């Protein structure tokens, strides 16, 4: 079952087509990546999903139906441009935002206590938000997004401004949420984070879908004919290898068209070379992103 279904949505602002026939679906309980360069149309797509903007054409189905006022309470949204009331205490700010999501004051206070403790912010709860550091405000923003225990979590650049320790904390929290069955739509420019967390993704550029599907499938789709190899000695000349480049402790061998990686492995073994590591070289998400956005990729 899909938690989100976006079907052929289009949105135009004046002469700008911000979203152009975008479609994708997010399975319930998955972590889904929504990627794209700045101005690609990601935020507009999210705002359409949340019914903040109405699409010119197309439809969205959220949590099994059309978006409604009641459903807003089942969704947590952390926008890219963070926003918390600066002149009130952290606790009051969290409780107010939770109350707008339908959480009772007592329940919200109890949950806030737990989250603040977990994120090491408990001693700061009476401080005004503007008195907190940037990193603390970022953590507070994450708490504000989760305090009403949403079924669908939309987080835009959740790791921005966080140090490695807090980044790990947020990652653990997202994984924990997935284990609880929460569907997570993650927008990020940090591709290694997306690679680490997401099962599936959609990449949008200039309002159009450029890539869509399971992460592994996309990486294989963009894999060139190459292998990564680590041996105990020098690599002898091999038939079918057109280029050999050192990559850290590995050697990347680019293969000619029609050359089979299994044949290469067999030749190495037959020549008595001890193979310590052998794998098909898959591109990183970063590489795919650059390739697609720079116009060298395959358009779906």
């Amino acid at each position, binding site marked *: 079952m899909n938690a989100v279904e976006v079907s052929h949505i289009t949105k135009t602002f004046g002469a700008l087509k911000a979203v152009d026939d975008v479609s994708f679906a997010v399975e319930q309980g998955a972590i889904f990546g929504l990627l794209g360069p700045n101005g690609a149309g990601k935020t507009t797509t999210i705002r359409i999903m949340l019914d*903040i903007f109405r699409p010119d054409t197309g439809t969205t189905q959220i949590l099994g139906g059309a978006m409604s006022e009641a459903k*807003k309470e089942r969704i947590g*949204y952390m926008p890219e441009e963070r*926003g*918390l*009331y600066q002149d*009130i205490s952290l606790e009051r700010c969290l409780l*107010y935002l939770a109350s*707008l*999501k339908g959480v009772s004051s007592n329940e919200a206070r109890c949950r806030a206590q737990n989250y603040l403790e977990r994120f090491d912010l408990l001693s700061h709860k009476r401080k005004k938000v503007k008195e907190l550091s940037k990193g603390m405000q970022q953590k507070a923003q994450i708490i504000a997004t989760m305090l009403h225990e949403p079924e669908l979590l939309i987080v835009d650049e959740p790791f921005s401004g966080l140090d490695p320790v807090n980044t790990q904390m947020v990652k653990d929290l997202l994984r924990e949420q997935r284990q609880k069955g929460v569907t997570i739509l993650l927008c990020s420019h940090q591709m290694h984070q997306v690679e680490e967390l997401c099962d599936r993704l959609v990449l949008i550029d200039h309002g159009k879908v450029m890539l869509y599907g399971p992460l592994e499938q996309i990486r294989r789709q963009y894999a060139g004919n190459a292998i990564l190899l680590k041996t105990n000695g020098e690599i002898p000349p091999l038939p079918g290898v057109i280029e050999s480049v050192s990559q850290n402790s590995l050697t990347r061998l680019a293969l000619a068209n029609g050359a089979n990686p299994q044949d290469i492995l067999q030749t190495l073994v037959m020549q008595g070379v001890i193979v310590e590591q052998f794998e098909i070289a898959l591109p990183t998400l970063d590489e795919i992103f650059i390739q697609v956005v720079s116009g060298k990729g395959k358009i779906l």
Partner: protein
Amino acid sequence: MYKTRLVLQHEVRTILTSKSFLFSVFGIPLIGAILFGLASLLNQDTRASSVVNVLLNNPNQKQANGYIDQSGLIQNLPENLPPHALIAYPDETAARQAAAAGEIDGFYLIPRDYLQTGRLTYVTTDYSPLRDRSSSWLIEHVLRLNLLGSDAQLAARVAVPLNVELKPLAPDTQRDDDNPLTFFLPYSVAIAFYIVILSAASLLLSSIANEKETRVIEMLMSSVTPLQLLTGKIIGLGIVGLLQTAVWLSISYVLMRLSGSAFELPQAFQLPISFFVWGGIFFLFGYAVYASLMAGLGALVPNLREAHQATTIVVAPLIVPLVFIMILIKEPNGVVAVALSLFPLTAPVAMMTRLAAANNIAWWQPAAAVVLLAITTVLIVRAVARMFRAQILLSGQTFKTKLFFRALFGKN
């Protein structure tokens, strides 16, 4: 409705706990109260010590004086006399020595024939031609007490023999052009309405611009609709505005009571109950119109700084009655006054000014003004609700007057 109420509660609580608001509600009247209290204290001894006297005299001076009573009149000094305020000396030589040593500022010489002539001499080390006669209040008080056989009550009565309460035989309902109230009463009403409507409406502008600037608006948009947000803010901040007015009025009333005064206007200047009823109606509609316009402005501006710069556009119609204030007061039934009090954007201030300036305004005029104002309120609230869309609220473009009017008239 539930979320509107949450927004309303949040707005009221946020404003009521903000330091700047608390200062404007309590601090300003408190400063007024302190000044008022000081003036009252000084006035309690008006015969004894005027403000001029206090200003002329050096506050660091001991204010000690001496006296030489050659007449033998002074037998008793008042019980509540501060120590060393008035020191008796046996002769002029001793008094002069004390003055030269700086122990006293000067001394009174009460001659033997004082009872016949009433004359006495004051010898001072610090001669000032501007010295007020009332600086001799203490010796006056002492002499009066002793002249009356040390009867303090009688002395007080002789000092202030009259406390006249004026009661006209036939109340004069005609206002006198020379009476300052003819100008100041309607002028005060105009200023009060201008301040109350503007300050309440400005809270809305600040609130929305602040949410845009701090980016909270997008978080809110994922929880409430723009209309819920707008409604909650207008009602909540309207309540705050009313509360602020009520506090100011209450403090003014309490201060007057504490000072022993009462706000009793002459018969010709007394405002009828209907004035206050119209006042309530014009405040509500005036606030709704200007608060909505401010909300529209807040929706368009990217930050607080630009919000305050852009306020002029909205405030301009509210200032117009103040520009024509003399005409409104002198010719309350003239063409300009009638036109300004019927035009919805100027009506709240102009009509209330006219109602305070004259008691012969045709009843249909405030009624017609209210109807026109009510229609305008509905149209403006609708227009602003259209402006109050997520697309505008979430945009960060620089404010342009043209954009404001285009948005207001639904042309974008």
